[in-house]
């Protein structure tokens, strides 16, 4: 816990609530524009859900988010994150282990991956070229929108009209076929989309994965093709759709952001939990901490999700009734859990050839779309999946800094896992039951796995919410369905990062363009704050001109 700064009684230019990656990105840009910024964080460490924590002696856990790709390269450059210690190492491949003892590997290299698919189906290998061209085209189409504030389609303000025209022109620049494919892509289910390309179950399962991670939808639900895009629009070193590990765990991203922030003169205060946002004469004027301490600021930016910001830090009468209703209806159902494991050595997977790079990437055990959908059905019924989908990594195969020599850290993202079990709060016994299904699934493919476990941290949405504050443990601060995207995110009429209260802003993943360790919401919110202050957005590449 950092000691309270000696500046008691001062009024900050801006107070950012929550030191998650978006809060820090936001604070960095504000500080670089010359504002005197304070970030307050409830935990004793920064990073929110992008942290590395030592939960077992000698091991560093990326215990929430676990891989990196979406962090916008513009942000990395603007905030000089590599200079502040950030290093992203792309991972080399991955694998789906099949129930019949076979496997489907994935490779970073397109041709290698194509050959591997060809081992299962030559037709699918051919389709892979067509498929990746299509997905990359969709990524290219959407990427320019990530760092722009969504226009209000009901507004006739010049700026909104201009932005709408920009969107319209981008769309109109497409050919008619591309337009049609784009509309289809946004509305189809990932399973239907893949059916148009592939015939093999395991191949489809492999491409399905990005369509469901973090969502409360199954692969057969319309709209999941967009979710796939959401996971693909990032890159590592310019390779679109590539993923990597942050050296030192995901906390390295937050640490580099905090370091960049401090270098610009910003102040971070950890161990300071905000109880209320101060509102005077209809304007946010600061925050009150648990314990009653008041900190004053000319404006407040909340990195918390909308439910937490408006239903906990504010009182209902302070807000328009219609807005409160929409915030209450905001869909933020948790759908995933996490099991983090310290291992005494690298587990054996006898089905895999010894020299393959599969352990140096993402590993999966769900070999069909149908099994994924079945896992979702359990969630719909309020249970954790009996046959869960796992996105499993052993980052220490690439980054030795996270465990003692010869030992390994394993991160298992698990879907689906409901925020409540059949309507009641999780019990510890149920949490252990959840962990058992995960461990058992891995052990089916790795005979020595159970013997290697030194320590295990199990996180259901309950634990995720407790530590990070994410309502219902939803990793995206709100589901990525169209009713909560673009100008609808978080709620229609308030998609431009401004709350209904003057001087209060939102900068978390609950705002456009949504979740993942992307930083775009934090940056876009900073642009809006600076616009209101009529200050130039210093160091912000591609920033809007201040009108």
């Amino acid at each position: 816990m950092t000691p309270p700064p000696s500046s008691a009684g001062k009024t900050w230019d801006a107070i950012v609530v929550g030191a998650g990656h978006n809060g820090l990105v936001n604070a960095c840009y504000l500080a670089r524009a010359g504002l005197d910024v304070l970030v307050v964080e409830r935990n004793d460490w920064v990073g929110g859900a992008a942290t590395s924590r030592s939960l077992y002696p000698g091991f560093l856990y990326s215990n929430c988010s676990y891989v990196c790709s979406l962090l916008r390269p513009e942000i990395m450059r603007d905030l000089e994150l590599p200079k502040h210690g950030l290093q992203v190492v792309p991972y080399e491949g991955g694998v789906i282990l099949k129930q019949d003892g076979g496997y489907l590997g994935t490779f970073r290299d397109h041709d290698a991956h194509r050959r591997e698919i060809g081992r299962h189906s030559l037709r699918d290998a051919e389709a892979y070229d067509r498929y990746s061209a299509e997905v990359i085209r969709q990524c290219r189409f959407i990427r320019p929108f990530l760092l722009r504030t969504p226009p209000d389609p009901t507004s006739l303000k010049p700026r909104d009209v201009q932005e709408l025209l920009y969107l319209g022109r981008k769309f109109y620049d497409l050919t008619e076929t591309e337009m049609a494919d784009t509309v289809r892509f946004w509305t189809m289910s990932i399973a239907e989309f893949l059916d148009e390309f592939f015939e093999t179950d395991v191949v489809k399962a492999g491409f399905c994965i990005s369509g469901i991670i973090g969502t409360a939808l199954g692969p057969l639900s319309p709209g999941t093709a967009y979710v796939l895009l959401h996971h693909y629009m990032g890159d590592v070193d310019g390779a679109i759709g590539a993923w990597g590990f942050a050296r030192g765990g995901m906390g390295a991203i937050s640490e580099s952001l905090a370091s960049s922030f401090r270098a610009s003169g910003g102040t971070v205060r950890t161990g300071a939990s905000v109880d209320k946002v101060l509102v005077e004469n209809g304007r946010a004027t600061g925050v009150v901490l648990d314990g009653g301490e008041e900190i004053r600021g000319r404006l407040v930016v909340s990195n918390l999700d909308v439910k937490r910001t408006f239903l906990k830090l504010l009182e209902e009468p302070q807000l328009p009734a219609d807005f409160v209703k929409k915030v209450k209806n905001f869909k933020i159902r948790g759908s995933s859990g996490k099991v983090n494991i310290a291992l005494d050595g690298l587990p054996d997977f006898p089905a895999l050839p010894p020299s393959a790079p599969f352990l140096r990437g993402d590993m999966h055990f769900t070999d069909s779309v149908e099994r994924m959908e079945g896992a979702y059905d359990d969630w719909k019924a309020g249970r954790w999946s009996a046959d869960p989908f796992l996105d499993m990594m052993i980052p220490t195969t690439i980054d030795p800094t996270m465990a003692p020599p010869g030992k390994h850290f394993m991160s298992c993202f698990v879907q689906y896992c409901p925020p409540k079990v059949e309507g009641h709060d999780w019990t510890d016994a149920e949490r252990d039951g959840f962990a058992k299904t995960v461990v058992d699934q891995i052990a089916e493919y790795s005979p020595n796995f159970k013997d290697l476990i030194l320590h295990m941290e199990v996180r259901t949405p309950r634990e995720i919410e407790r530590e990070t504050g994410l309502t219902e443990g939803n990793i995206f601060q709100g589901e990525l369905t169209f009713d909560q995207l673009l100008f609808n995110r978080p709620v229609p009429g308030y998609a431009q990062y401004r709350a209904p209260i003057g001087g209060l802003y939102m900068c978390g993943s609950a705002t456009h363009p949504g979740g993942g360790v992307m930083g775009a919401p934090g940056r876009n919110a900073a642009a809006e704050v600076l616009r209101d202050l009529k200050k130039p957005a210093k160091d912000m590449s591609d920033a809007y001109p201040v009108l």
Partner: protein
Amino acid sequence: MPTPSFDAIVVGGGHNGLAAAALLGKAGRRVLLLEAADAVGGAARTVDLAPGFRVPEIAHLANRLHPEVVRRLDLKRHGLAFAATNLATTSLSVDGRPLTLAGAFGERLEGDIAEAERVAWAALRGKLLRFSGVLAPFLSQVPPRLKNGGIADMMTLGKLGLGIRRLGRDDMREFLRMVLMNIADVLDEEITDDRLRAAVAFDAVLGTSLGPRSPNSLMTLFYRLAGQANGVQAATALPRGGMGAVVAALASAATASGVVIRTGAGVASILVEDDRATGVVLASGEEIRAPLVASAMNPATTLLSLVGARHLDTGLVRRLTHVRSKGTVAKLNLALDGPPPFTGLGAEGLTGRLVTAPSLQAIETAFDAAKYGRYSDEPALEITVPSATDPALAPAGQHVVSINAIYAPFRLKPDSEAGREAFEARILAVLERHAPGIGSRIVAKDFLTPADIERRHRIPGGHWHHGELSIDQMFMLRPVLGLAQYATPLAGLYLCGAGSHPGGGVSGAPALNAVSRILADGKGSSLFAAGGKSRR
């Protein structure tokens, strides 16, 4: 080569084929309509189930017969009359507390229900009707080209934008938020009563491959609510004499405008010469030539089977191959030797539409089975008793019952094939629970799964709409990009069936739009056959 004696051939004598033929006939064309079956009407036929018992074989309610079709073809003069308009929907409950949604889409709620629910429902209903009203004008429009279109295309898009804007700021925001939502989330926000939630969710998913929790399931409800019956938006009606009466009126209108109808004349292929349709070849081998062919059959069947992929570019073939068209609704028609004994329902109630789904969740559970190619364990039913409204459909004192059951997937897992009888038994079990003793009154029955519908009516997948009504297959994407304006790459060949915008249901709207396109293309050309490519 014989001189063509017809200006146009319409392939398929379902309601859309009949409407297209009649409209072309009215426009002065000499039209030949070819139907493979022994009678016209397709899926809108009324058939004999047993001596004296007449049932709607598949379609059993009129909720979207397009007013423009009725007006232009003067269907009332040709005998179309309604036995009942503005049918009520009753959400049955086994504990004898049915909830009736009276008037168009629950204008009034009858039954014991909390006052707060009534208020919330009135607000939600109003919103849904306003939003679907924005879409209604587009049911009778040729979908615009997304790009490279003409002024008319721009106007159509502009009108849609204007329609949304005219809702006012708050409604516009709500519209843009809700448009791709699922019906379960919409209801979760406003309504708690299980009977009401189930009845509304049922309307949203009936005839689709969606469950209440599948995104986009609100759009299918909008689609239904955009229709009208006898001048009332979102209402449901029963034609006098059954759905077959609509067919009879259309056939009468067609004949009156000089259309020659040939039944028992299945088309085996469409003749193509120099990228131009020049006629058809019947299954018998007989060749009939005409400069224009309009197909009311499924678009994929028309182009891939009747024309043949060799005449089409590969992109189009690929798109047509991928049209999703797997039906999910089974039909059970019953003849009873007495009235169906529904618990808590008087004679009045029998004249309405009955829905059995204990809750929205029950529909979702029923859907889950279908996802994996299994019949639902607890199917949800839509029941009508046509003879309660129109006694002529059954002998005195006796009745016919018409039931749609979901979910019955078209593509079954191999081990579920044997489940057909079991599924029928499950439907009857649900029925028995709501109407104890009904089973002993059955004197005849006919059960059709989507596979049966496909066999009997040559509708791929047995799908009501000749292709799933999902957003990626709607409007300018229906049936697929490049065919949405009813013209095909072959000059003189047009699509005019439910596979085209705005889709299925007994509306006649695809035919109406197709004919307007055909006539527009034909302007300035004596044989109006050159038009197929004019705007491509």
